[in-house]
């Protein structure tokens, strides 16, 4: 996602759809605000939110990335059972002729993919950080021991906000 996000600074107004812009202003769903401390972000604009069991969680791309991407026309979802290290490709999105990798925030194994995105790729633009049934999350994962350690290196929400603010300058 990193290279996509750079586009936002120099994107022409027509590139970022008005729709994607409005998505950022939508109030976050209640379920997302409940467990903030469990949500972490990567410098490449992916997020992971651990569930209460602290072993499984949801992975997706951030609102910042979704906005920078423009209208997503296709999402390539990872296969169930796929095992990845932090930083490995976990799937891809296509927008504006670009096939962009989505990278795993931590070492994990894919339990499920969000099939909603197959039918309706634009969901990822509308609610990219929503991990409910109708949300734009990408995969549900099981975090390995290495993955728990990887989490330490990620940014929490505050830090990510500062990070993206700095990127915009």
């Amino acid at each position, binding site marked *: 996602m990193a*290279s996509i996000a750079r586009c936002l600074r120099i994107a022409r107004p027509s590139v970022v759809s008005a729709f994607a812009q409005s998505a950022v202003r939508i109030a976050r769903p209640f379920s997302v605000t409940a467990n903030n401390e469990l949500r972490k972000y990567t410098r490449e604009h992916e997020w992971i939110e651990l569930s209460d069991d602290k072993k499984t969680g949801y992975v997706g791309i951030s609102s910042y990335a979704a906005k920078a991407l423009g209208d997503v026309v296709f999402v390539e979802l990872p296969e169930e059972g796929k095992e990845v290290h932090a930083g490995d490709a976990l799937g891809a999105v296509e927008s504006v002729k670009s096939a962009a990798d989505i990278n795993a925030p931590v070492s994990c194994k894919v339990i499920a993919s969000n099939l909603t995105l197959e039918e309706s790729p634009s969901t990822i633009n509308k609610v990219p950080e929503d991990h409910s049934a109708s949300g734009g999350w990408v995969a549900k994962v099981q975090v390995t021991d290495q993955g728990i350690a990887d989490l330490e290196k990620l940014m929490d929400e505050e830090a990510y906000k500062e990070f993206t603010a700095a990127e915009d300058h």
Partner: protein
Amino acid sequence: MAAVLLRNTTGGIRCLTKGPAFISTTTTISFSHGFGLLTKLRRSHSTTISQDLLNKKVQVYQSTSKDPYLNLSIEHHLLQHSHPDSYVLFLYINDPCVVIGRNQNPWLEVNLPALQEAEDIKLVRRRSGGGTVFHDHGNVNWSVICPPAVFDRDRHAEMVVRALKDLGVTTAKVNERHDIVIAGDGRGNGKDIFKVSGSAYKLTRLRSLHHGTCLLNSPRLKNIGKFLRSPGEPYIKARGVESVRSPIRNVDVDTEEFTKGVVDEFCAMYEEQCGEDVKLKRVGEEDVKNMDNIRKGMDELMSIPWIYGQTPQFTFSSRPTEDDPRERPPLDLEVQSDFNIQFTLRHGEIQTANVSGLKYEGRAIDGDFYDGVVSQTLAKGSEDDSAVKLYEIKDWATILKSATTGQAFKVSDPSLNSISEWLNKVFPGNHFR
């Protein structure tokens, strides 16, 4: 081999290598600040794209091969293995081929029977996004790989525009779709806009790739449209990415001149990063035959599961549906009035099938029941329960016959032949690559 970094007086960085030098007469590009033409290209005789080369700040490669699968694999290798801070230019020309984007549908985008008939035109699925294009010896492909920090969808298209302008194509410019277009003949005659170059991108965690075509002097210009209009298009509704059509024309510039111009502009753009020592490396079949990565990449690109199986889910229906309400062209087939064929397909395999209105012969004709049997067989596939793979079908007549094996009825010959003839045009197997 240790790399020694020197700072020259203007603050730029030059890379030298110490230690056992390769025995090579490397090619040096000299250019003046006036962006003059290349002088004296001497060929490099190194046999691999070494990690040393891949670590240089600015790299320029040109392929001597016209094999599209090899060229795309070399490009992918450069994407995966060039230093994350480097700027890489790769230029290549392909034998005639139709190239679809990563997430496209060949049955929707390509006239597969026409390709089959032409025999010498390959079908390629690339790893970047975007739509379908046609390549031949009159088209030059340019590819730039750079750090994500400087990624911009137009930056290197503008670079190519500068090269074109230097060659007299004064009306060249980048449009809002990141394509390169010209007005009229590109030299001030005529106002109609024509596309001469399309772009596509592949973005990984560490690197950004932007590649594009440039139609310089294709002899097949008039036929390109024919190859890109599929007989299946009226019946297919696909997830994934559809192409956007544009009127095209040749720029009418020599491929060598264009290549030199693009290399010049690239080196000028990154003059600060590279100092003066940029070596153009020619790579081809000989250079990469021992490189496992590239061989593996080629195997993947040439494989049936990649070319056909990477197709996102799609539906095929002979009649309008709720999901795809378009009017269908009239079909003149030996069938009942309620004729309808509907498939859903995933990875190019039939998942669901609904067939009605075939004509049968045999005892006690019960069309509806027979239609149900045929539908079930198509969806289920053969005895081993595997799905019917579109790209394995050599003749639909065989498929339809086998759908009634062991039954007291069969599809009547006239019905079978007319339906097969039509389906063989839309889904003609994979008799070529």
